[in-house]
């Protein structure tokens, strides 16, 4: 698919930035406002899906190739598992120990501030990275690999 008309391309070139920014906002403020890692990650993936629909598959893969998306996916998963395991390094050895909140932010009044809640914003970022990259991969795989598959069957 070579992409859509020039109207769709122009409008999507403006809106894709806003959608991406909104996704980043939803991920970063997940511990203060509704949203969080999963919803923000899907919005990040949606901005790339808009590129895929408007400009065609080659342009979207030039921006974020399948290899890069897979590396981001693995990096997000590893980051989340590492955050969970870091709790073991501190005194009370427990999985998912909120070490930043309990050790460093305990005495401070950080309620309703951006830097608060310890590991929760970090875990939100990890999950957003993971979900965004993996859902973009799924959309590219499901919607763009059909022509090659049918071409191989013909041979």
């Amino acid at each position: 698919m070579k992409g859509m008309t020039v109207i769709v391309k122009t409008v999507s070139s403006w809106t894709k930035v806003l959608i991406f920014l909104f996704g980043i906002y939803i991920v970063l403020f997940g511990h203060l406002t509704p949203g969080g890692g999963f919803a923000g990650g899907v919005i990040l993936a949606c901005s790339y899906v808009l590129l895929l629909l408007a400009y065609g598959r080659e342009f979207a893969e030039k921006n974020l190739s399948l290899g890069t998306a897979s590396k981001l996916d693995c990096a997000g998963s590893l980051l989340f598992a590492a955050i969970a395991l870091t709790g073991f390094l501190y005194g009370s050895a427990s999985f998912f120990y909120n070490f930043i909140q309990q050790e460093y932010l305990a005495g401070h009044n950080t309620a309703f501030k951006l830097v608060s809640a310890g590991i929760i914003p970090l875990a939100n970022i990890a999950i957003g990275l993971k979900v965004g990259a993996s859902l973009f991969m799924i959309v590219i795989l499901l919607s763009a690999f059909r022509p090659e598959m049918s071409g191989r069957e013909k041979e």
Partner: protein
Amino acid sequence: MWIFYVLLLFMVIACIIAVQTDNLLSSIICVGAVGAIGSLMFLLLYAPDIAITQVVVEVLALVVMLRVTISRDITFITGDREFFGTVTSIVIILIIFLAGIEVFRTLPAFGVPVFSQFSNAASQTYITEGLTKTGAANIVAAIILDYRGYDTLGEAAVLFTSIIGATVILRKETRKQVESAR
């Protein structure tokens, strides 16, 4: 309260159209209407987290389904329904409906959570001590990433495994083809 019944009526109508229509495109649009109304109901039930997740996942799933439908040659379903299959599904739905009525009779009144009746329930601890213990203003984020972080890790593992499976099944060339091309 009446708004939920109105939305539910629209949801049921959209579901029936999605099943009954012959055109695949209008069927997909009706599935999208069901998702949009569901998201609106979550919003009216004071669950904005679920509403946001529902609407964005619905958009992504609809895009995939639309791409798959448009790339097909035939977008109309032809042929008649099987009599036996229709009767069986109607009987199963009727049994589930009657069981659901029995279950709903035992529930507390609408708007009164069952956990608010017990002072030592887990949800009461989360609500009263969540902000001071975790520091997260959004109590949903505090629960899913701190109190119940293990569940979220399992969810991430499920998503990761399914992505690996999809990548393996939908790849362009097998490893043998790549090696023989070199």
